């Protein structure tokens, strides 16, 4: 499922955007350790398309998508 999330991101002087931290609704924060890949991609799982950041978060690999001006993740849980 598609889940929109709050993200803290950095804009560099060239205009590149880099996500730094995912902020969960319940107050938990997940810092992004490293972004290993950035490309435009569709998310068939969540339903959408945008800039896909492959991120390492607590030694897990996770995709975060920036679609226009909203961030979303592919949530495995249905609902």
């Amino acid at each position: 499922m598609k889940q929109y999330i709050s993200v803290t991101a950095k804009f560099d002087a060239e205009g590149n955007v880099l996500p730094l931290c995912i902020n969960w609704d319940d107050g938990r924060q997940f810092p992004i350790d490293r972004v290993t890949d950035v490309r435009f991609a569709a998310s068939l799982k969540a339903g959408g398309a945008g800039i896909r950041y492959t991120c390492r978060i607590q030694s897990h690999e996770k995709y975060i998508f920036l679609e226009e001006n909203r961030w979303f993740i592919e949530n495995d849980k249905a609902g």
Partner: protein
Amino acid sequence: MRTILHSDCNGFYASVECLYDPKIRNQPVAVGGDAEKRHGIILAKNEIAKAYHIKTGEAIWQARQKCPELVVVPPHFDRYMRFSRLCRRIYADYTDRIENFGLDEAWLDVSGNDADGEAIAQEIRKRIKDELGITVSIGVSFNKIFAKLGSDYKKPDAVTVISRENYREKVWCLPVEDLLYVGRSTKKKLNQLGVFTIGELAALPLSLLRGNFGKWGDVLHTFSNGYDASPVMYADESSAVKSIGNSTTAIRDLENDEDVKMIFMVLCDSVCRRLREQGAKAGLVSISVRDRELSSFTRQHKLNVPTDITEEILDAAMELFRESYHWSKGIRSLGVSVGELTPSGSPCQLNLMNDERKRERMERLDRSLDSLKRRFGTFCVRPATLMKDTALSGFSPKEEHIIHPVGYF
């Protein structure tokens, strides 16, 4: 030799909707207009729905008879515009010669010293699938017409090459109506001449074609033989607008001149605002009328002086309507379009009988209304007449219909 690609997004609207809603992806899906507002026709369908012989343009209830479990979703034009833009951005990585044909089709000229059209087409096909989550079929050929036939040849998610070596086998056996601009009536005429395939059309003597179709005979001859040499336009060359029009199906049947005037007012407001945005004046006004039994006609009228004044265009439309319709039946839909466009600044012959001072005042009024509507929306200021029936007049074609059909010429 030129290398032309024609890329066609398969079931574009439906594919985008299926991407956004994973739950419906494995079901027969159609994008349909709003049945409540009587716009209840199929706009697009996915591959699964296609297997039920659901056709674009048919009524939703007809489609449901063929396929009761059909999922009908409302259209999201903003999404389609975005995906069209994203496709174009991918094309732009390969060439600056991109000519859009509607939202979901485009020609690309990738000619170069050693351009491998097929390899480029395969790469584009794969990228669109990975990056956008929709599929395209691409035709590769040495002219635009055969490239378009190629994109229809195998779908979805496929590439077809039509070369100088194989076009006789691939193209000439296709039914003649597959050729661009062979519609129902041309097909009928050609069939009467014993022409059923594109190859048979290509073999027909030009003189015979000219005799039957006039200058269209030349076009048919050129298209079917692969002689078409029309260039793919550059990306920044927007083709000059030749006409501007809007039409609508009213929420209820129109019963009298007053109803018709209300609809024309809304349509003319949209058409004239678009006309003024283009910086153009119109020399021709035409209307289209469709009654409740779905028979329709169009009428046109040449204006004495080109104009962009809403009231003048509206008057011309109403006059045309009064001359040509006598209310034997209620009316279902109406359209207004303007043509013979000239730049606003170009000199024109004034008419001594016209009150030019009044016309200037009307122009100023239109400009003021335009800027109000630009800032606060179409509904911020409206003629009082439209308030008599806000359900009937409460639509805004300028915002709702940003997608206009295009022609090849």
